[in-house]
């Protein structure tokens, strides 16, 4: 098992072998989650705090379930309604929580880099559950696990990521991960929703969706925020769906066995046709949710192992000094 990180702040710092380690362990948790047992006490005695500065139902539930299945004491803090709105700074919040001695801190925040900042100030393992437009590493890992299980490998695949790339942390983490694992990544979307100079990341950029999907093994759709469709970034919903919504006709340009993914929640009829989303032969959206729990269990398990090892080393050092 190769995994030497103290925190999971993003995909960028991970080595391909570390990514493979997480996915291998996650496979074991997929099996566990499908069994009657569903529990493994690897986080027994540990405290997990979920801090969501942006509201989220799905990701928070997934992390909560993952922690509980591993035996951790899980606490949810809906930061959107708490003292943060009373003017407390992120650092003060972090220090307050730190005083409660958590072992795992799961954080979502609306600003890029906020989770990195918080991780500097606490002495537990921090998992990034999404920070601004920066990274959402567990989403990329669960997508990778889904792809690996469906395609039998996670390299030399043609993967098209479609939609609002510029504002998407999911897209960022995915293109970094898929690039590290040596896939051909294509980004498809209107130029207004492409980050500047993204072509230098070693990806191909398409503004014609049909060309972008040509021969793809995986079609990954992104959510488009409704407020970005009122003329700010694209002229209208219907124009967007016509040019970038995934329907049967556009999907026909991909390989016949191409899978369709979406991180949820979906805007049916805007970025994806409802019929495609529900097509059990193509859509793996439900499976992504299932993989999410397993991947998060694996990440927390690995971080907890490193945390225990680190504490053990500190204890031995103290014993030697004393």
């Amino acid at each position: 098992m190769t995994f030497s990180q103290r925190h999971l702040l993003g995909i960028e710092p991970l080595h391909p072998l570390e990514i493979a380690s997480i996915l291998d362990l996650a496979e074991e948790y997929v099996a566990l989650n499908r069994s009657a047992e569903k529990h493994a006490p690897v986080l027994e005695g540990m405290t997990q705090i979920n801090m969501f500065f942006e509201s989220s139902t799905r990701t928070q539930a997934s992390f909560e379930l993952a922690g509980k299945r591993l035996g951790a004491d899980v606490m949810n803090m809906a930061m959107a309604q708490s003292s943060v709105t009373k003017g407390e700074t992120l650092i003060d919040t972090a220090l307050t929580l730190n005083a409660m001695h958590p072992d795992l801190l799961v954080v979502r925040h609306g600003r890029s880099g906020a989770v990195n900042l918080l991780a500097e100030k606490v002495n537990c393992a921090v998992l990034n559950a999404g920070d601004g437009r920066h990274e959402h590493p567990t989403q990329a890992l669960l997508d990778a696990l889904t792809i690996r299980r469906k395609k039998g490998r996670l390299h030399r695949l043609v993967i098209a990521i479609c939609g609002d790339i510029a504002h998407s942390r999911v897209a960022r983490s995915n293109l970094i991960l898929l690039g590290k694992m040596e896939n051909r990544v294509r980004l498809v979307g209107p130029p207004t929703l492409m980050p500047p100079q993204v072509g230098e990341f070693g990806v191909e950029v398409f503004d014609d969706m049909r060309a972008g999907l040509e021969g793809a093994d995986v079609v990954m759709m992104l959510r488009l925020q409704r407020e970005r469709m009122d003329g700010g970034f694209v002229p209208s919903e219907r124009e967007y769906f016509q040019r970038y919504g995934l329907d049967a006709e556009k999907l026909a340009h991909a390989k016949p066995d191409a899978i369709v993914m979406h991180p949820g929640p979906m805007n049916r009829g805007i970025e994806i046709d409802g019929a495609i989303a529900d097509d059990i032969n193509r859509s793996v959206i439900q499976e992504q949710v299932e993989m999410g729990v397993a991947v998060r269990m694996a990440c927390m398990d690995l971080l907890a192992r490193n945390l225990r090892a680190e504490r053990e080393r500190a204890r031995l050092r103290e014993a030697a000094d004393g």
Partner: protein
Amino acid sequence: MRWFHNARLIDPDAGTDTIGTLLIREGRIAERDGPCPDGAEAVDAHGKCLAPGIVDLGVQVGEPGAQHKESLRTAGLAAAKGGVTTIVMRPDTDPAIDTPEVLEYVTRRAMARTPVNIRAMAALTRGRAGREMAEIGLLQDAGAVAFGDGDRVVPDTRVLGRAMTYARGLGALIVGHPQDIGLSTGACATSGKFASLRGLPAVSPMAERIGLDRDLGLVEMTGARYHADQITCARALPPLERAKGNGLDVTAGISIHHLTLNELDLGDFRTFFKFTPPLRSEDDRRAVVEALREGLIDIICSMHSPQDEESKRLPFEEAAAGAVGLETLLPAAMRLYHSEGLSLPQIWRALSLNPARRLGLAGGRLMAGAPADLVLFDPDAPFVLDRFTLLSKSKNTPFDGARLQGRVLASYVAGECVYTREGQDA
């Protein structure tokens, strides 16, 4: 009366770098390369450099309004330690320096509290709000050396055009912050691969060029005297060159940070590297270093912007921009000497002679009769900067832990020694 000998005299006006002597008497430079007169205190410079003191155009002092970040006293101490003998204050105080009363208050307090010269830039518009022009004439009479709204852009071209027309009548210098606010609002990084990877809201360097084009158009229309506070990217250089070539009364400055750092220094969201405008790509940095070498960019300043820890310990987008720079301006500028091949007289033209000239001040020269505002420094002395050794109240420097070369050994204002390193280790 003081007589420096064995000194490497850096004369930006003559463009020379020679070993010689310098006599100062009654606060002025009296003679160069002459013998030691009776009764003069002889100072052996041991071959170190003696140059005109730095004239730092655009220093933010927190007084009034944010004394906890920097007071006139601490800014003065930091300046003396950094070889800055004239601070030109920015008007972005609270309240803004937009009336003769505030200006007089600041000037009076500064005289009593700081060992270096302090001059003030006044706001161009009331409250720096960009709507009505400030009392340019009264402020000029009260001693304002230039007019600008700090890093705020006057959005209305009619307001700016009128202020320029009015200022031209008074011969007042306008300092603009060239930036297109439509593009730059909300941005905290320069758009490009790095900002895209970090997921930071970013602005194209083109916003600076568009802002500069607009300002230069107004200068051409009104005939005003204009200084662009920071020109930081390659794209803004051709219009600047054209404007100068067409004989417009235009100069340009740049902060030392944009000359020595680039966007990659942001690393993992290091807020001490957040600036307005944001740090640029390495290509842009090299282009502006070349522009400085050629004299297209005239002035280097520190853009000293003190921020307390609370303003910086925030997510990158929310953190305050700017860095302290009075004490690091000289050692950072030595990077241009050691790594970019600029000569010391070239660098001193931008640090001292050009800003003094542009503001109509007497400093920046080593000739007889000039004020004896001097800095004695060792351009080679290496050190690692510890930000907690800074005398500024705020410690937000991007050079914390950086290996720098160049230390100020002593600073003189009107012939009086205001700082000396003797007896200090750190």
